[in-house]
């Protein structure tokens, strides 16, 4: 597998760190490694060693999943419907 990597930066005011970690778990099978780290204002996900055939779809899908998880978790916290 060719070395392919992507670095995604999620602002913590818009993405929950646990939602980004949920995305990492969901996409773990598609990359050799997915590292998630937090700074004061950002959650950074680094996807390494995924098939270059995926192109941008993998990082884009990862970001979509993180956003979806954020929305669902935020609404669940507020007590509303997902």
């Amino acid at each position, binding site marked *: 597998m060719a070395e392919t990597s992507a670095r995604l930066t999620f*602002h913590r*005011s*818009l*993405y929950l760190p646990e939602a980004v970690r949920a995305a990492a778990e969901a996409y773990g099978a598609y990359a050799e490694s997915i590292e998630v780290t937090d700074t004061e204002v950002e959650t950074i996900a680094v996807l390494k060693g995924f098939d270059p055939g995926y192109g941008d779809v993998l990082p*884009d*899908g990862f*970001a*979509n999943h993180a*956003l*979806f998880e*954020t*929305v669902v978790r*935020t*609404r669940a916290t507020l007590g509303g419907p997902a």
Partner: protein
Amino acid sequence: MTDITQELDELIYSTDGRRVSFTLDEAIYPRDAVYGAAYLFVDRAFVFLTRPADDRIEVRLKPKEESDKAGLEKLAGEYANELLNQVVRVRVGESTAQIREYYMAKAFFADSNQTSIDALLAELDAEELEEDPLEISVPWEDPSNG
């Protein structure tokens, strides 16, 4: 690829030919409304949110299917329309929150409910005390007496 900035009615967006993006003022478009619209678009487009300034949210939309400039413009317009729906939904939710809480409290704690339950229980008790012309209760008695 060159970035092109265009105006779609009131929505100013930019596109690089593959994706379309626009910046929203969070004072006008609350984060919950941006989330609500994004939630409805994740099956059609890759949605990415960034924070270019404290009170600004940048929305980037990249269609999952191949799309031309007209398709990107359409996507941006549809997102903007949905965003307005969501803003109204959020505002109505906020303005009616107290009324909802009042009705919920009334539904759970009002005496009138208890009164109606008591009335139903009294009605059931009264039925049980009525005569039993068919003697349906007999099988429950001691068979040695029958």
